[in-house]
């Protein structure tokens, strides 16, 4: 059986795990940002779909992946803008609008795909990888972690950038205050609405980018419902991570690895139905919650719209 698991194959499995993890990572980081600022962003699946569709459109017509990531992020921002206007500015129910946006984007992108691509199913060429010298020569680990598109390294760098932002900057303080006690932020002279708007728009950009990566690199094409619930996984990751970006990274990787594990076990001929293997990451998380889940600390004002001077 060891023969089956050649270095190349193991490398490919892990590479696949990372590729699957990146959209989850970006969505999770985005959701975490919104939640920190007090906005429960259920519309993130819709933002990812918009990012996937527009990202693919951009990359396909321009021939540049980077432009695709840009248009993807813009797509996410466009959806986030609606969310920010409706939920942050005028305080509509975040759950209603979030679900509505997700449903709407599912329908809209499927509709557009139908009229545009459903006869030709265009596909992008392979994403070019930035090979990190030396590190990429390590067996198994090298090809798995150090031969990705540049955006993957940027996404990982973002994890640490966000960690720095939350803990060491004035903006980090503002975000936390916006989620924990928005009135205190307001009287300190910082506009809560603006802070939350910025957070939601950034979430949109990250989710859109995640969607674009999923379509352009993960799949190389766009098809309806391509995100398959990745946004909801992002929400779960963000909540499990309790405000720490690194935990989003670990969580995303766990999911990615479990997906690859499914393939590995099949290739090894272990006869467990995929349904059961697919339950593994969720089981793992549930067990973690049962063992260590005490008092998951969410921001006090999460999900509650802020209105100045309201009683």
């Amino acid at each position, binding site marked *: 059986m060891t023969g089956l698991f050649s270095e190349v194959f193991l490398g490919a499995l892990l590479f696949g795990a990372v590729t699957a993890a990146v959209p989850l990572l970006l969505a999770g980081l985005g959701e975490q940002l919104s939640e920190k600022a007090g906005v429960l962003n259920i519309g993130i699946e819709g933002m990812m779909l918009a990012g996937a569709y527009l990202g693919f459109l951009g990359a396909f017509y321009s021939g540049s992946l980077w432009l695709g990531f840009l248009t993807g992020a813009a797509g996410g921002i466009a959806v986030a803008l609606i969310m920010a206007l409706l939920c942050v500015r005028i305080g509509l*129910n975040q759950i209603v609008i979030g*679900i509505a946006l997700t449903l*709407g984007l599912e329908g809209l992108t*499927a509709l557009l795909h*139908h009229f545009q691509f459903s006869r030709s199913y265009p596909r992008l060429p392979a994403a070019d990888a930035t090979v990190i010298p030396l590190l990429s020569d390590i067996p198994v680990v090298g090809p798995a972690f150090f031969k990705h598109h540049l955006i993957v390294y940027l996404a990982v760098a973002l994890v640490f950038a966000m960690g720095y932002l939350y803990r060491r900057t004035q903006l980090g303080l503002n975000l936390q205050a916006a989620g924990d006690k928005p009135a205190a932020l307001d009287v300190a002279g910082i506009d809560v609405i603006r802070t939350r708007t910025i957070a939601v728009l950034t979430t949109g950009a990250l989710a859109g980018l995640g969607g674009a990566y999923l379509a352009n690199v993960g799949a190389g094409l766009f098809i309806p419902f391509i995100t398959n619930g990745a946004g909801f996984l992002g929400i*779960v990751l963000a909540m499990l991570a309790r405000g720490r970006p690194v935990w989003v990274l670990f969580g995303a990787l766990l999911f990615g690895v479990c997906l690859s594990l499914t393939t590995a076990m099949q290739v090894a001929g272990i006869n467990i139905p995929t*349904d059961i293997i697919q339950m593994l990451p969720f089981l793992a*998380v549930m067990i973690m919650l049962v063992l260590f889940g005490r008092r998951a600390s969410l921001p006090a004002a999460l*999900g*509650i719209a802020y209105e100045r001077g309201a009683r």
Partner: protein
Amino acid sequence: MSIDTAPGASANALDATSGAATGRDILHRLLMTLGPILAALIIAGCILLVVGVDPLAYYGYVLEKGLFSPLGIQQTLTRMAPLLFLAAGLIVAFRAGMWNLGGDGQFLLGAVTAAASAPVLVQVMPAWLALTCSFLISMVVAMAWSLLPALLRAYQGVNEIITTLMMTFLGTSLANVLVKLVFRDPGTTVPQTRTLPVEDRLPRLFDTTITSGLVLGLAAIIIVHLVMTRTAFGLKLRIVGANPRAAVHAGLGVPRLTVAVFAISAGLAGLAGAVDIIGVQGNVRADWNPAYGLAVIPAVFLARMNGFAAIGFVFLLSVLSIGGESAARRLGVPNHFTLVLVSIMLIVLALAEYVDHRYNQSRKA
């Protein structure tokens, strides 16, 4: 701290200010619902125009096939049954300030349980008894599925959004495993459960194709509404939802009530699954997941967790899904357009509620 006060708090804020409904109130509500629906239709109509479809024809078909044709209205009413049960379950949870987002998993497990038990039970006992037992087992299984999130929330303070979402992912997979490995009908090549014969399913109403599950669903949601608004138990749950600390202070057994809320909410979701199987579907196929939960959640919010309003919104959803499918087929628009229409409608309705609220406030000032 946790997010728990959010859903209940807003709901209660609304229901506390709304006094007894007068005729004018009802008229006003109706206008504030129909107006936005019209606006949503116009917006969605513009999208139709862009893709080259006549919106009037489209809506004509939606109305005709979802509402005004005898066949259409029967289909619409039949579709409502499971949605009503789901809505009832969500009302309990949301009013008590708990985000049961695990409805789909509970629904599927309830469905699988019903599909596994009913065909067997009808062979050994009278049909009415068999179906009743089947309903009860489904309810219990769904309740059991909610136990872990309930206990974690009640005694460990673990946020239930995460746990119920996880359990819904797990429940969906488990339902599939059960269908494929445990309850699989040996007589078919397709992995699905045994089929409950049409004669043994819930009777249809009068001479129509409407399932009597509709009556059960209506009864469930009305009972839930009355319990939540008119009884001590309901008030206790609403206190927990609006201010958990006040509930502790008032001596309510918050952990126990929490578990009760989850059990009721999940039990109703399980019944939704059972009523769909025993009333309409007859069996469960592997990988079947209608994901009703996602559409029902906003409907319940828009109804401000009021049971009667929820019935209205569920009806609207059903008309759109039945009529929209037909209209799409006739006019060559992909069926996905219905999603866009529902989405626009939700947003416009939410906006209208906001405008209405603002208007009322400025009038009172």
